[in-house]
Each structure stands twice: as structure tokens, then as C-alpha cells.
């Protein structure tokens, strides 16, 4: 048995050996790049256009021009800015209200908006009020779309930063608490629901080893069942698989509907030397009538593009429809589009989803490619026909539906420094009539509206039955 002291010594020796000086050309090359590179101060760029039908483009452009002129006229007349852009994208920058910049936001004591008033849930890392330093606690907050009335729902339960969802009635926010050791008070890992009026936290799932995370929570309209994706891993972090669980809220009984199994994290695939990760499951969505479930199954595959260096792999996903008991699964034909995160429309007739397309961009140094992820929004009829692409600029994500059949989503813009910031927009079901709902700008970082991987900000669902 190797003692701690011996292991410490061996690891010290292991890491001691290795190069300690970098080739001067590497630093010189970086500095050359910097010579052509400006510095970035947080700001939000103008959004790009949506993909619209040809017939709509002229009208949209004309309407946008009218909006710009109207906005300019409003400025000249020093009138109060209109509340929210209501014209097709891209709106003039003056069309939206300026949010309250509040980098050290403290919880508001104001009650949350009643009923189904617009509200956004997000996860925020806490700052120590005494020292101003960031802590190791993340909590669920809400904010109104104009950036006002930021409220921390609960002080006690620390959550992770990638799982977030609303209950269908908009009264509670669901998030995953990993149960970090040494973060007081100790929390049982699992999905929690936070009441937006009282902050009361209710544990909905229990995630014990080998469970490492429950994600994608979706509560049925009657509150009787909960859908989650459960990820499992062994003690060293090698993933074992993921599965969709149906949790009976009355008894806590968990039923696995479908799952993937991994032997460790990798498998051989494609070209010689390739190792692929997967498969794994994302984003189950229960149809409004409760009869069917749509979800995405992701996996890594060999990249067959001859322009890519031998052995490269990319992630891709399929949308699968199945009955609510896990039977009769079938993969939708998306015409080769890699997809994730399906969501049923309120009337159950269509499914909106995000494309997830990875490819490689050749670097200027001729030897290093970088992986690029493009995300756009599509819809498809529930019977698997009538596939429609709604955006084409590569940075639209987090699509859901409004009660009147429009699509609400997050549009991400590069900040030029490797990250993305975004805002909520809506568009009609044909991809036109874009309307901007928020303008968080640099504050997007504060509300964690900057993730390209997971939308960790969720708009409150519209009231049921409307």
C-alpha cells in the first residue's frame, strides 16, 4: 500500500520532470497576434439578422428603417424611450431600455411579479458583503426583463450553474444542488424547486452515487411527475451513462424510461486513433397532453471531412420521439442536421429545437484547428415532417415557445474575447418579426447569460391556458 507521504514524493518527482522553458517563437507569435488585436471592454454588439423568408425580407428591412428613423426622431425630441423593440430585427440600439447596472446586486425586498408576468430565473455566484470577494456559493435569482428587481430566492441551497427550469405554472424554479462538501449548510444532492414568492426549497430528486447530476427537469402540468436526465459516473469521474427518469412526485419512485451505457468515457470510432465520447442524453420535453416525450441523444463521431486532420471527431445529436412510457422510440429525420434541446409547442403540433453543429476552423499557424460550435433554431412538425430552419447566423440557443405560438430564444453575441453574451428575443414561427425582449449588455455576465453550452437563464413560462 502506497502511503500518502510516498505518493506525495512520487508525484512531486513525476511532475518535476518535464520542460520548463518555452520556445521564444511561441511568445513572439502571441505578441504578434496581440499587435493586431485591440483590448475589449464589456459591451454588447448589435444583434445580427434572423433568417427570414425571402418574401418577408423587404418588408422587414423597410420596417426596420422606419424604426431607426422613428428612434432617431424620438431621441431628437428627447422623449421617453419606447419600452421594448416591436419591429423586426435588427432594432436600433435606442429602441430598448437601459438596464440597471448592478454588479454587486443585493436581493430586492420587492415581491415577485404576480401571475404570469415576465420574469427571468438565473444562477448567480454570491459575493461576500463584507469583503467584496466572490464566495463558493451559487444561488437561484430572478430578475425582471428590464433588469430591475433582482431577488435571491434562497440563501441556503447552493446550486450548480448548468441546470435550471421553471415549473409549468411559473411559481417555482428548479435547479440542481450538487451538495458541495464544505459549503454550509450541507445539502442533499438533487433537484430542488424554489418558490419564487417565499424562497422555500423543496427537494424533488435524490442524486446519490453513482449519480453525479440530474438535469433538464420538467414537471408535468398537473405536478404529478417529473422528467429528469440522470448522469452517472464511477468514482474516478469516468462517465457510466445517462438516462431519462420519470419520477412520481407522490411516492418518489423513479422509473428509467430510456438510457445510454458507457464503458468508461471513450470508445473507438471512425479513423484510426480516434476516441469518441458518448452517447449521452439531453433535454427531455413532455408533450402538452403528456403522451409523448422528445429528447436529444448526443454522441461523438469521426469527422469525415477530408479537410480535417485524420482522427478528428465532432459531437452530433439526434432528436428522438417516444411514448411517455419509454416505448416506440423513433429518430426524426432532420436532413442531416445535428440537433439538441427539443421543446413541444403549446398545442403539441410542432417541436422547436436547436441545431448543434461542430466543425473545425483552420488556424493561421497552419497546424492547429479550433473547434467551432454553431447553433441555430429549427422547428419540425410532431409527425416528423415540415422541417424549417428559422435562424442562420450560428448563435441562437435556448428556444422555447410563448403561449401565442411565437418562439422565445437567446441570441448570443461574441464579446471578442472568447465568450458570448446574449439577450432574449422572440420571433414568429417562420423566423421573422424578431423582437428584442432584454438588453442586459455587459450585465449578461452577472446573470450568467453567457454560456454557449447550456442556457442557464430561463424565461418564466407564459400562464397556462392562454
Amino acid at each position: 500500500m502506497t502511503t500518502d507521504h510516498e505518493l506525495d514524493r512520487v508525484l512531486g518527482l513525476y511532475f518535476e520532470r518535464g520542460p520548463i522553458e518555452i520556445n521564444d517563437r511561441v511568445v513572439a507569435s502571441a505578441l504578434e497576434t496581440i499587435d493586431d488585436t485591440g483590448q475589449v471592454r464589456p459591451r454588447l454588439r448589435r444583434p445580427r439578422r434572423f433568417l427570414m423568408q425571402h418574401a418577408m425580407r423587404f418588408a422587414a428591412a423597410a420596417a426596420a428603417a422606419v424604426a431607426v428613423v422613428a428612434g432617431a426622431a424620438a431621441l431628437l425630441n428627447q422623449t421617453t424611450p419606447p419600452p421594448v423593440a416591436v419591429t423586426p430585427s435588427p432594432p436600433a440600439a435606442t429602441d430598448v431600455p437601459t438596464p440597471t447596472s448592478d454588479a454587486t446586486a443585493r436581493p430586492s425586498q420587492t415581491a415577485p411579479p404576480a401571475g404570469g408576468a415576465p420574469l427571468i430565473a438565473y444562477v448567480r455566484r454570491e459575493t461576500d458583503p463584507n469583503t467584496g470577494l466572490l464566495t463558493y456559493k451559487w444561488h437561484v435569482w430572478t430578475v425582471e426583463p428590464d433588469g430591475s428587481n433582482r431577488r435571491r430566492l434562497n440563501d441556503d441551497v447552493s446550486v450548480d450553474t448548468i441546470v435550471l427550469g421553471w415549473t409549468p405554472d411559473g411559481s417555482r424554479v428548479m435547479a440542481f444542488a450538487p451538495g458541495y462538501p464544505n459549503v454550509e449548510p450541507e445539502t442533499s444532492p438533487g433537484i430542488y424547486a424554489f418558490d419564487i414568492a417565499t424562497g422555500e426549497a423543496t427537494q424533488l430528486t435524490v442524486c446519490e452515487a453513482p449519480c453525479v447530476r440530474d438535469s433538464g427537469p420538467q414537471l408535468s402540468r398537473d405536478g404529478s411527475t417529473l422528467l429528469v436526465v440522470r448522469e452517472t459516473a464511477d468514482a474516478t469521474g469516468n462517465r457510466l451513462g445517462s438516462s431519462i427518469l420519470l419520477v412520481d412526485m407522490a411516492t418518489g419512485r423513479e422509473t428509467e424510461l430510456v438510457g445510454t451505457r458507457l464503458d468508461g468515457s471513450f470508445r473507438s470510432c471512425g479513423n484510426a486513433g480516434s476516441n469518441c465520447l458518448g452517447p449521452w442524453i439531453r433535454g427531455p420535453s413532455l408533450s402538452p397532453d403528456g403522451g409523448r416525450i422528445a429528447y436529444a441523444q448526443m454522441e461523438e463521431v469521426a469527422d469525415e471531412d477530408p479537410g480535417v486532420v485524420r482522427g478528428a471527431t465532432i459531437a452530433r445529436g439526434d432528436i428522438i420521439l417516444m411514448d411517455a412510457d419509454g416505448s416506440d422510440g423513433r429518430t426524426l429525420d432532420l436532413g442531416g442536421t445535428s440537433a439538441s434541446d427539443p421543446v413541444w409547442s403549446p398545442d403539441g403540433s410542432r417541436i422547436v429545437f436547436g441545431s448543434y453543429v461542430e466543425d473545425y476552423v483552420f488556424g493561421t499557424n497552419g497546424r492547429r484547428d479550433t473547434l467551432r460550435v454553431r447553433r441555430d433554431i429549427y422547428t419540425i412538425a410532431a409527425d416528423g415532417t415540415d422541417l424549417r430552419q428559422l435562424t442562420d447566423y450560428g448563435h441562437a440557443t435556448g428556444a422555447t415557445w410563448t403561449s401565442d405560438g411565437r418562439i422565445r430564444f437567446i441570441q448570443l453575441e461574441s464579446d471578442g474575447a472568447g465568450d458570448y453574451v446574449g439577450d432574449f428575443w422572440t420571433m414568429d414561427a417562420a423566423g421573422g418579426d424578431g423582437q428584442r425582449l432584454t438588453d442586459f449588455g455587459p450585465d449578461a455576465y452577472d446573470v450568467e447569460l453567457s454560456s454557449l453550452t447550456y442556457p442557464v437563464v430561463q424565461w418564466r413560462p407564459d400562464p397556462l391556458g392562454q
Partner: protein
Amino acid sequence: MDRELVERAQGGDREAFAVIARASADRMFAIAERILRDIGRAEDAVQQTLVIAWRQLPALRDPNRFDAWLYRLLVHACYSEARDARRWGSIFQILPADGPVDRDETLSVADRDQLDRGFRRLPAEQRSVLVLRHYVGLEPREIAELLGIPEGTARSRLHYAHRAMRAALEAAERPATAFGGRSS
């Protein structure tokens, strides 16, 4: 790092940033190489870190925390490189050995070989905490602060990484089979 230099670089002084880059690059490279165990990727991680640092430097609130901030950028660049490395199928590449050596002074070839296999199987997050703990010499609390994770998470990652490395080391001490493999 000298605060004045950092503040000048924050104001857009490229010469100041060049001084900072040259002073920091060797240390960054050594850390990145130990996390990634690949010189080319470590060089890329350093390049990526320097470019991002230059661009984001105006947003650094406290110039006195420049070093920790730079290391955090570096570790995240290593995560990105490790992800690509996984995609490019190089996770089981074995480092060349330098010949038999006395275990009392350094590691045996078998130890190093097994340690390397064990290390390369670790997720990048666990590799990072091992390197920060055993090469940079940081305490778990400092690692947590540097990486922006809870201290418990840093300790947990260290625990699992230590367990894997201990298992790898003990595998090296078992007799080899007749086919050159190792008994289970």
C-alpha cells in the same frame, strides 16, 4: 507581477504587456505541459492565454491579482486543449523514458509509465488540481480560489486523482505477465 506594469498593460501599453508575457511564459508553459503532457498543446495553451489575457485585461478589477487571474485563464485554456486532445486521440500517448534509473533518486521506468497512463486517463479538471498541488505547491484552499470552485470540490478532485494515481503506482509494482502486459 509588478502592479505598475499590469496597470500600463490595462491601459493598452503593448510593451508593458510584452514584458509581462515574457516574464510569465516559461512558468505558464511548464504548468500547461504538465497538465496536458504535450508540448505542442502546451504552447498553444500559452498562446491562447496570452491573447485572451491581453484582450480581457481591462476587465481585471484588482491588478494585484494578476498572477492568479492569468493562471486561471491558463487552466481554462488547458481544459480547451485537453478537450481537443481527446478528440484527436492522443490521450494514451506515452512519454519517452530516459532509461533505467535508481528509484531512490527518481522514478523507475515502470513507475513513470504507469503514472503516465493513469494521469492521462484523468479528466482535465483532476489533472489540473494535481499539477497545482504537487508542482505549483498550492494548498487546496488556494487551488479552489484560483480555479473559482468550492474548496470541497478542489479537495474532492484531489482525492479522486490521488486514488487513481495511487492505483496506477501500485499496478507498476505488480509482476508483468509473460505477454508483456500486467496482471490484474
